[in-house]
């Protein structure tokens, strides 16, 4: 059963269109990540699901019930805010029980619920403290506790980890994943961190300028992005976009583009394209990790590897991998290499390009071919 259904949802602030017809749905127990650049309307969408913002048009259903004009408290949702929004004058315990108190839950029941949640999040020792006496990570836990204690139909998270330092963020990410496994509640999770989206979500909704660009499983979003925006947004460093021409070389279809030395690269495609595209312009999308130092022995065993040589302009070792900037004609292309086969500064490297993973985009519509 779908626990959340959103149909052609629109939101205007005066003349400013923030959401332009969003469709989304979440199955029972699903973890949906909502990603997109700043200002694309993620928080607005989440606030509308929560009932904190009015709906301009379209519909929102939670557990099958149309909730467009149901007040937040009656939507059976819980929300974790980016700022945590803990009540500063209350202790952690009071923060967690405030909602139950508002709803008139008896004290014994409240105490039991706090106990359960505190054990789950390991915050028993913090219950007597006020938010001002907690660290960022602890506040984050209390905020999660306040949501978890409710046992709602739907969890809404608005960038809950973005105020934490990098290390804590990774820890809490794992924590949230475990928690979701254990609790199994439908969750909508806003983030602009695509790694968080990839690691946590069962499906990712990518938004841009108030429109849903793609709504699919993480591996689909990553490997078969529907358009150049999604392709560029997911993955870091981002996908390289190389303007090229589709040609027929020998009996194969290939992409060709100019190189720095005046020659041009000819990369045979691993998949078929429609015949009428041949001779037309395309954009070749190659992720950094799909470039590697050409090794005849290894690459002979792998199908769909095309080769070309390119000068190396910048080398950035990060330890686990080495990022290098390569020159393809007028373009700079980023590659990600194993440290022991990493390019050297100034070297002219012979590359293997994994064409089975490459994407082709229509330069006009920017859509995946």
């Amino acid at each position, binding site marked *: 059963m779908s626990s959340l259904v959103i149909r052609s949802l629109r939101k205007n602030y005066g003349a400013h269109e923030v959401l332009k017809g969003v469709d989304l749905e979440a199955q029972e127990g699903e973890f949906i990540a909502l990603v997109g650049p700043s200002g694309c309307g993620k928080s607005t969408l989440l606030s509308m699901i929560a009932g904190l913002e009015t709906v301009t048009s379209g519909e929102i259903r939670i557990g099958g019930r149309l909730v467009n004009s149901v007040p937040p408290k009656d939507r059976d949702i819980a929300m974790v805010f980016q700022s945590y*929004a803990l009540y*500063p004058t209350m202790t952690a315990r009071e923060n967690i029980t405030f909602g139950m108190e508002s709803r008139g839950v008896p004290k014994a029941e409240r105490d039991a619920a706090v106990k359960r949640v505190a054990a789950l999040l390991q915050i028993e020792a913090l219950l007597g403290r006020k938010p001002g006496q907690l660290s960022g990570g602890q506040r984050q836990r209390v905020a999660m506790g306040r949501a978890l204690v409710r046992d709602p139909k739907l969890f809404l998270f608005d960038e809950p980890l973005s105020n934490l330092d990098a290390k804590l963020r990774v820890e809490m990410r794992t924590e949230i994943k475990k928690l979701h496994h254990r609790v199994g509640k439908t969750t909508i999770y806003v983030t602009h961190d695509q790694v968080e989206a990839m690691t946590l979500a069962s499906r990712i909704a990518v938004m841009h300028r108030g429109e849903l660009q793609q709504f699919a499983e993480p591996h689909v979003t990553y490997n078969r992005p529907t358009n150049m925006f999604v392709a560029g947004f997911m993955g870091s460093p981002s996908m390289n976009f190389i303007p090229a021409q589709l040609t027929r070389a020998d009996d194969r279809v290939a992409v060709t583009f100019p190189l720095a030395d005046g020659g041009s690269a000819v990369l045979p495609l691993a998949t078929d394209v429609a015949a009428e595209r041949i001779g037309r312009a395309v954009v070749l999308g190659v992720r950094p990790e799909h470039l590697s130092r050409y090794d005849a022995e290894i690459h002979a065993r792998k199908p769909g590897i095309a080769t070309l040589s390119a000068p190396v302009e910048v080398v950035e070792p990060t330890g686990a991998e080495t990022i290098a900037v390569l020159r393809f004609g007028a373009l700079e292309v980023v590659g990600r290499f194993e440290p022991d086969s990493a390019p050297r500064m100034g070297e002219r490297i012979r590359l293997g390009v994994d064409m089975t993973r490459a994407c082709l985009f229509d330069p006009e519509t920017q859509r995946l071919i």
Partner: protein
Amino acid sequence: MADLSLARVADPEAAAAGRRFLAGRIAIYGILGVFALIYLAPLVVVVLNSFREQPEIARNGLINLPRSFTLEAWSSAWGSYCIGGTCEGMKRNFLNSLAMTIPATIISTLLGALNGYVLSKWRFRGSEALFTLMLLGVFMPGQIALMPWAFVLGKLGLTNSTYGLVLVHVIQGISFTTLFCRNYYVSIPDDLIKAARIDGAGFWRIFRKIVLPLSPPILIVTVIWQFTGIWNEYLFGVVFTSGREQPITAALVALTAGGTTARTYDVMSAAVLIGALPPLLVYFFGGKYFVRGLTQGAIK
């Protein structure tokens, strides 16, 4: 502190700099001291005169060191001095002032808090315009409202009554209290309100459980401001009340204006001090919260 550490320095240039620093300090404190004296002198004169005997004041002059001591003036000013035919001293007017100032302060502060809460957290179409209009009240001198108030109080049958003055001061004060509270509440994150709404709290519960507990700094500021302002105000008191119904500020005007008897500087001094005491006490005990509250946001 500074000169202690300087004393240990052997370097002659540093020593010269130290002397210049010291000279500068002396000059600054000297000037400050002179101004403080000028400012405090009237208070000293009044306090001293309130403990002198009237004949001695008449003999040695108003501004002179006391050569006598008595509490007579205080008890007379409090309970038995005659103003305009009644001989009850300031006591009744003092109580009038309390009966006017305390409710007016409490009511106007609570209304200001409520207005501020609505104008900052429950904005509606036109709420900004409404706030701007309320701000006009801050800049509008009270005298402008004299005639309208005379009319309104007359209609309500509240002329020459403390209730009437309470009403006037509540309404006149709302602009200020709203401004104070609204500007303070703006710094309370909206997310808190949203979280509380999801938690099932309504308008009043959010106000009582979340906004009010965050409010003491601004409420203290508002209460001090309103208390001293209303207590010290005398224009409305003089115009709308007379005789036994007057607040103490208005009665003081009557006391000094009464030209029938010989000037009684001892009693006048004591009466003025009685009238000035409550705001002084409020500021004495609340002053540091006042400064703190003005410079502090809602969330540290």
